[in-house]
């Protein structure tokens, strides 16, 4: 029996090269590009956290932005209104997001696909409305600005490295999770929930655990956003962002691990470029989505891994 490994040597080298490039990036780039790449990582992490349930669990989570926003708001509110040390805020933000995810999951997980998604949208909108209207506490539609950030990561370089480290650690943990027995069984539920139940899996419990994990990492992405921007606003929880995160997953490739990371990065970069020329960003996004569905249903990374895989098979066939 051939011993199976978690990561091939070629992928390890690629990952190492990419990390080295990212680590050196701030010494070569301007402030704006450092900010942009940090934001790409945050958004990529957000998309990857959604993909845990979307691509691996087959659950159409339509309110993922809520956990992003709640993570960010929790960290900001704890720091500003609670007077807590910002580091504690960063730690507790994701926990609050995970707790909310558990609560919503308990309500939604009994329902099948379409109803699951619809109830999620309504519950998510509820949270958004509270944040949007509660001026005295959340700052309402103005959001909160000038959220204190620890001095160590107060500069743009510091924030960048903090984001880089946290993102890498989170990706590593999520990679472990999707390749764990939990992740494998989650995939089997995605493929065929009825059969998964029949082989002795408690499907709902499994889905609930998946939702909590996704909510947690969505919350981490939210707190990272606070470090980069120093502010939070209600748009972070709005359902259009949830949709955008789904598009990121589809764009990058939702059946691959790093696809959503790529998709998130691409959307941030595109928005930055498109934003120079036009205000109609959502229209551009709509066109991208249409092209994607017609021409790249497996996403960019999915497309290339399929090509690569086929090439390898052909070579082995010779």
């Amino acid at each position, binding site marked *: 029996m051939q011993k199976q490994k978690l990561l091939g040597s070629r992928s390890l080298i690629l990952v190492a090269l990419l990390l080295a490039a990212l680590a050196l990036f701030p010494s070569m780039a301007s402030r704006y590009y450092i900010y942009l790449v940090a934001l790409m990582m945050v958004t990529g992490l957000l998309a990857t956290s959604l993909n845990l349930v979307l691509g691996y669990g087959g659950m159409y989570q339509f309110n993922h932005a809520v956990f992003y926003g709640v993570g960010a708001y929790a960290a900001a509110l704890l720091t500003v209104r609670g007077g807590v040390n910002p580091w504690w805020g960063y730690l507790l933000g994701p926990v609050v997001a995970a707790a909310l995810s558990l609560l919503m999951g308990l309500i939604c997980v009994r329902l099948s696909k379409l109803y699951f998604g619809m109830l999620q949208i309504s519950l998510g909108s509820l949270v958004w409305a509270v944040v949007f209207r509660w001026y005295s506490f959340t700052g309402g539609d103005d959001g909160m600005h000038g959220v204190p950030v620890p001095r160590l990561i107060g500069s743009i370089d510091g924030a960048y490295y903090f984001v880089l480290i946290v993102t890498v650690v989170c990706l590593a943990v999520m990679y472990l999770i999707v390749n764990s027995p939990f992740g494998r069984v989650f995939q089997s539920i995605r493929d065929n929930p009825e059969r998964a139940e029949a082989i*002795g*899996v408690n499907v709902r419990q499994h889905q609930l655990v998946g939702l909590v994990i996704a909510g947690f990492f969505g919350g981490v992405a939210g707190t990272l956003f606070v470090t980069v921007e120093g502010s939070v606003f209600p748009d972070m929880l709005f359902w259009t962002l949830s949709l955008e995160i789904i598009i990121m997953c589809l764009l990058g490739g939702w059946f691959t691990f790093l696809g959503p990371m790529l998709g998130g990065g691409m959307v941030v970069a595109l928005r930055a470029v498109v934003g120079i020329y036009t205000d109609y960003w959502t229209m551009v996004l709509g066109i991208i989505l249409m092209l994607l569905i017609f021409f790249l249903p497996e996403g960019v990374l999915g497309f290339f891994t399929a090509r690569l895989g086929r090439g390898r098979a052909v070579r082995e066939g010779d």
Partner: protein
Amino acid sequence: MLSVQHLRKSFGPFLAVSDANLIVEQGEIVAVIGPNGAGKTTLFKLVTGQLKPNRGQVVFKGQDIAGLSPHRVCRRGLSLSYQVVSVFPRMSVFENVRVAVLARRRQVLRLFTPAVRLAGEETWEILNNVGLADKAGLISGTLSHGDSKVLEMAIALGNRPELLIMDEPTAGMSPEETRAAMGLIQRLNGDMGITILFCEHDMELVFNLAQRIMVMRQGKTIAQGTCDEVRCDENVQQAYLGGHGDA
């Protein structure tokens, strides 16, 4: 080992199973036969928890399991191989079986141990046993129908069942595949001591494999006994074997 008494299930006004009775003893191979629509698949789904009965008892190893959810039934040692192929199509053949082994070992909630380190040997053993080892790396959605049916069985075996229920295990198989599947079923029963309950339209297969047969018609059990008893039973001859001439 398994005893089904007066089981009844209706879907709205339609009575799929009206009075099913069945006894399976440890170590046996038991077949359920009956014309299309007799309620065989419904009976199996009732036994394995996919459907909840309106009335009646399903006693497995001394405990009533009627109405338990499928994963609970499965954990008691009762596993179902489906009539319509029901595998995990985007996953490899190997992973299809591995998840079943992981589920049986109750390791499904482990978050940080790589799955590649778990359940490998047992999975290989099952794949070797059923003859799918050379296709272990293929994505299961790309398998031929015959191989998919074998994978069906392999997944069910991953649960290491005491009682394996198979809904038309050879449906749609070529004659060679059917012969191989028959050999496999006999080995599972003989070498591994798995009790087997199956239904099948192929009468040759039924009379070759089964030690006892239960006959259903219009949702009712009309006879149960050894092959000879069933063959000679008047009710059966009238209602099924002779009456329709399609057996």
